[in-house]
């Protein structure tokens, strides 16, 4: 009996914590079904009062989605701006990280560990430290105010290499040696032996890189001045200020791609172990 009570208490505590983490999403989702007028009415603040907390709409309405999808063509263009920045970053970073991590883990070449140490230093450095050199380099290359100024610096990061290297370390060397004896090439060993065993790591890298790039804000503000080229992550804050009547629906739409990506890779992500 006592054991059951303990289990129930644990589940209750976990349920509360889960609810706490899910609350912003539930809140955004529920509020996205309010009308713009209701949002204006309920979230009007003045110096004396804070905006209240409203979870249940007075009247279920798809007006915000209608407004976002049909009345704000700019919003959808910004969505594709985000895609245009995020997809290449994820693709390039994943490919580069897989090859680099494989080289640092399973290939033997001079100064391998020293080079990896330099990589680690890059990982430790906060992004703000490299911001100015990156800016100057991009300016010299004439890429300021283009999507390349966002894609290139973010595509080659030490994070993916370090993450996948940790996964690849657990791939037994014996299997690779056996493949070599059977005549498999290095590329074949990577794609047929190593990659299937680090699927979880690759999935984790894809999800984390996607989320990181999808939510990119600082780089955009620094490298891009043309607001037409802004991704949704930056434009959303402007929507919140100027077009608050549809902000919740915009938030839900913004959340949708990373959520789908996570659901797609959820199995590998959950089973991934370093």
């Amino acid at each position, binding site marked *: 009996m006592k054991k059951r009570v303990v289990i129930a208490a644990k589940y209750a505590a976990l349920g509360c914590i889960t609810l706490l983490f899910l609350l912003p999403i539930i809140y955004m989702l529920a509020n996205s079904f309010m009308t713009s007028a209701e949002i204006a009415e309920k979230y009007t603040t003045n110096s004396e009062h804070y905006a209240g907390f409203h979870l249940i709409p007075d009247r279920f309405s798809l007006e915000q989605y209608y407004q976002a999808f049909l009345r704000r063509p700019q919003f959808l263009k910004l969505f*594709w701006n985000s895609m245009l920045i995020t997809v290449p970053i994820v693709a390039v970073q994943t490919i580069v990280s897989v090859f680099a991590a494989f080289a640092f883990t399973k290939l033997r070449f001079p100064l391998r560990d020293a080079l990896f140490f330099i990589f680690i230093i890059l990982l430790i450095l906060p992004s703000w430290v490299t911001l100015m050199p990156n800016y100057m380099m991009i300016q010299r290359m004439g890429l300021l105010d283009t999507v390349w100024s966002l894609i290139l610096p973010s595509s080659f990061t030490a994070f993916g290499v370090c993450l996948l290297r940790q996964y690849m370390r657990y791939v037994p060397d014996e299997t690779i040696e056996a493949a070599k004896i059977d005549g498999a090439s290095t590329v074949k060993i990577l794609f047929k032996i190593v990659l299937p065993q680090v699927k979880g790591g690759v999935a984790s890298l894809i999800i984390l890189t996607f989320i990181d790039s999808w939510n990119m804000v600082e780089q955009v503000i620094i490298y891009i001045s043309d607001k037409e080229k802004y991704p949704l992550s930056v434009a959303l804050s402007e929507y919140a200020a100027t077009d608050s009547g549809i902000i919740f629906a915009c938030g839900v739409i913004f959340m949708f791609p990373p959520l*789908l990506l996570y659901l797609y890779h959820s199995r590998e992500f959950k089973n991934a172990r370093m």
Partner: protein
Amino acid sequence: MVKSENKQIIKSIVIKVAVAFLAIVALLTYFSGTIDNYLLPHVTIVPGGEGSLKYPLKTSSKLEVTGENTDEVKATFRFNCSHDLDAFVSVGSMIDFKALAETGESRFAYRDGTAAVTAIKESADGFECTAEVRDLQLQSGDKMPASGVEVIVDTVFETPRYKHIVMKSAIKDDSYVYLVTRGKDNKHYVSKVEVTVIAESDFYAAVEMDADSLPFVMTSSKAIRDGQRVIVDG
């Protein structure tokens, strides 16, 4: 095994949802304007503006002549009108008429004339006006019309000028109209404005309202509300 199959099903569903989502977003990126235009209410508008209301009246009556063969001969006629005449006619208003005059042996012709309204009173049918002939354009050889001669009232009453004249069908519930304005985005929006009807003819009304004279919504393909975007047909 079953768990693995379930995961595959989830993956398959996620891919389908993702493809559908991206396809919808792609479609709407290029065609949101077209779809929106299709979903928006389509309205027909009529230009508003200042002017006067006109009320054409054509009716027949009989001439009544009094004081014949004296210096104080007076020719009058009465006619009925169902319309509320207050805004259109008052004592002293001039009206046009035609009177049947004998031009020869058993020959008759209508002669134009003008008359002044001398009295207006309510009757069972609406209003009864009495008008006194001021001028009758008889030609040489015409006999002076006598009592009982047919008179055809063929005149157009006109109100003073009003600032806002609208079609009556544009006034909803006798109390408000929808004006069409152009927003900053160069698109059309409707705004609901309360009005007070001052005078009306069969099709038009003079109204008072606290707004500039903009085009009025005449008809709408679906219900509209204040501040809504609309597509103006024509």
